[in-house]
């Protein structure tokens, strides 16, 4: 493959020249060096695609040179092809090659040299590619891992925050409600206004706790909880994340996380708000159950009494007036009519007393006519001693 840069390191100028000539003929760009120190100190060593290194160099031998390359974090990826003199191969067979990518006996033929060099460069190319896949996979995994970790951390944090918020809100409401109820009850009892106390208690129980508290809870939930949670979560997320992880996934986080967190916080808040609502309603109900029956028990007799009085005052006069009129009419029919009828009969039998009878009838009619309006006027007082006066006026008239 043309253009690849090869560093040929051999103490022999003959080997350097011949190797260089062959490789250059096949398009490689060749640099030559005679020792291991020069190999590792080349100003642009990282640009080489292959380092061919004789195992028996002056000063620092090929194996040590290889070790230097392979333990340097910037250049360890450069493949190293060791050239081992044929007569020392036996000695080296059991010796580790210090991370060299391959080895080749020396002397070598141009064909062998080119095959080996191509082979290693091809392999390296493959390795670079698969390393890239590996890197990508690792990156993805890292990102996933980081996301999961962050999510878990955020969820945990949200849970803690929400729980704390609910706790504090509940306790605040609890305390406040209790304090207010207590305060009012105490104040009203002191004034000895039993009725007002009861009404107030009812009022407090119903309106204040039920409505106001509920509204307050909702408001508080919406404002304090959401804001505080969001703020705390953001802060917690910032401080909690290891900076390395943060850098690594920063890009993706900017896209995904805010939406995710927001959605989750919303959801969690909604859920929790419902729970809190229920909790509060329960508290209120408990409060109500505790207070309402007492109030009701104490209030009922007094209510009944009042109703009776109202009834008496409004309906009684009409009933009495009607029954009095009915009684007068009855008395008239029962007592006055027979007497009149008897007198009429006597008059008929004794025609001689016609004049007297006529005078008598006239007299009785007059008396009844005078008496009737007086009786009606005095219904309330005279209702009990009704027909007696009817006969009394007649007696003087008859005398």
């Amino acid at each position, binding site marked *: 493959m043309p253009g690849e840069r090869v560093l040929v390191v051999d103490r022999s100028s*003959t080997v350097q020249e011949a190797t260089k000539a062959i490789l250059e*003929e096949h398009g490689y760009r060749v640099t030559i060096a*005679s020792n*291991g120190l020069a190999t590792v100190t080349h*100003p642009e*060593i990282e640009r080489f695609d292959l380092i061919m290194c004789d195992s028996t160099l002056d000063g620092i031998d090929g194996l040590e040179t290889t070790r230097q390359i392979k333990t340097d974090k910037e250049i360890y990826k450069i493949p190293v092809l060791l050239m081992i003199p044929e007569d020392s191969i036996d000695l080296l067979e059991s010796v580790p090659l210090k991370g060299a990518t391959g080895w080749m006996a020396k*002397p070598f033929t*141009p064909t062998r040299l080119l095959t080996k060099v191509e082979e290693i460069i091809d392999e390296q190319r493959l390795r670079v590619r698969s390393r890239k896949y590996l890197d990508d996979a690792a990156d993805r995994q890292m990102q996933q891992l980081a996301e999961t970790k962050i999510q878990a951390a955020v969820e945990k944090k949200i849970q803690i925050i929400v729980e704390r918020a609910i706790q504090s809100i509940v306790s605040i409401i609890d305390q406040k409600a209790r304090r207010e109820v207590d305060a009012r009850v105490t104040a009203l009892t002191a004034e000895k206004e039993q009725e007002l106390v009861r009404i107030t208690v009812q009022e407090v129980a119903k309106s204040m706790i039920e409505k106001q508290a509920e509204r307050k809870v909702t408001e508080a939930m919406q404002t304090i909880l959401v804001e505080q949670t969001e703020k705390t979560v953001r802060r917690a997320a910032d401080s909690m994340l290891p900076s390395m992880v943060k850098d690594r996934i920063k890009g993706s986080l900017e896209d995904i996380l805010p939406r995710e967190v927001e959605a989750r916080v919303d959801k969690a808040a909604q859920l929790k708000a419902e729970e809190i609502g229920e909790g509060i309603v329960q508290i209120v109900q408990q409060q109500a159950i505790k207070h309402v029956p007492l109030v009701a028990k104490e209030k009922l007799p007094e209510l009944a009494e009042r109703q009776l009085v109202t009834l008496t005052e409004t309906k009684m006069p009409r009933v009495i007036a009607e029954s009095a009129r009915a009684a007068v009419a009855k008395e008239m029919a029962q007592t006055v009519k027979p007497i009149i009828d008897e007198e009429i009969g006597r008059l008929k039998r004794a025609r001689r007393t016609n004049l007297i009878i006529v005078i008598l009838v006239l007299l009785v009619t007059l008396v009844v006519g005078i008496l009737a309006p007086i009786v009606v006027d005095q219904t309330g007082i005279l209702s009990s001693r009704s027909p007696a006066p009817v006969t009394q006026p007649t007696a003087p008239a008859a005398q």
Partner: protein
Amino acid sequence: MQGNLHEVPLPEVLQFISMGKPSGMLHLRRDNNEITLYVKGGRIINSSSIERKRRLGDLLVQRGLLKRSELSQLLQLQKTVESDKRLGHILVERDVIPEETIREVLRMQLEEEIWALFAWKEGEFRFETVDEARLGDAIVHIDIEPLILEGTRRNDEWEAILDVIPNDSLVLTVASLDEEFDRDSLNLKPQEWKVLSEINGRFTIKAIVNRSGMGRFEVHRILSQFIKSGLVVIRADTPLQNKSSATTAKSADRADAGKKGGILSLIGGTKTKDKGAKETLSFISPIGVMGYFVNVLAQRVTALKEYAPSEGDDSLYEAIWSDIGQTYTKADLLSVSANSVNTRDIETFFSGFEFKEAVDDCYEDTIEALTTLLQTAFRVFATRVGERPASRIVRELLDELGDQTIVKYRGPFPLVERVQNVLRLAA
């Protein structure tokens, strides 16, 4: 104008020349060293030193600008057809190397040469005015003023470098690394790395200078820094320093090995009986033929009764090789010990490549190196046993081998012609 550098230092002499703008030759001599600077119109255009001619060609080969075979051809040409011309001119005229490149190489070589003279505190100088036309065309013209400035500056630094690197024949090796070696802490510049990359535990500083394609001063400066920092150390057993006790345990072992398997085992030759009585020798390549030739030469010469050994003769080849090897650096798979050349490694290596084009340069360097070894060794043997016996042995050997050798690669090899070309054999 003439005098002593002790009284008039070189910078002042040059200053004087620069002002008068003359044309001529400035001869400088110190002990056995003599050098002439050619001046044209107050500018230096060339120099002549003993090794000069050799060096330009080698320099070009070592820098990969010229092939060894091309150089040989050009030198042959210079010897025969264009004897009046300098190698530089021939190269330019024949368009072997672009003029600009030649100029650059020559300029650097010349400047380095002159700056080296700045270190001369003693010696004679003489300026001889010459007609401008006689000096011929020049490829480079070096202004003296800036040369003096730079030379003076370098001279001061040289003092410090010399404390660390007393001579160029030293062989350097890299130190072993600490466990906590931090490669980033070095942060080498490309030139520094180039110098470091040439150190192999075998090449001398001189060879490193030549191979690096950089100036001598620059290479020395960089190397002295490496040495001071402990990254590079001077080899204690630098061959040239141990000339007298060259027969180390290692080379003795090698010598034994050589004897056991016979000389042919060292050079990879095999004997086959032909129909006739004469033996035919098969070799892998001309390298093996040359190796066999020089090895048998040493054996036969030292076996002569006229042979009067001198101190160090046991490792004569080794001593010669330690010098030649620094010039023919691409032949470094050849090994020499106890007056015996081992060509097996290099021939095996080349065989792997089937001696194809890729190894051309190295092959040519090797043949050239062996030829030079033969040449030098023959001169030494001639002084030990006399010209005639030495020549006789060479002739005998050529008769024996002559056309009988078979080479698998790079044949046929005109051994007789080649040997006769380089050795002036006595009648």
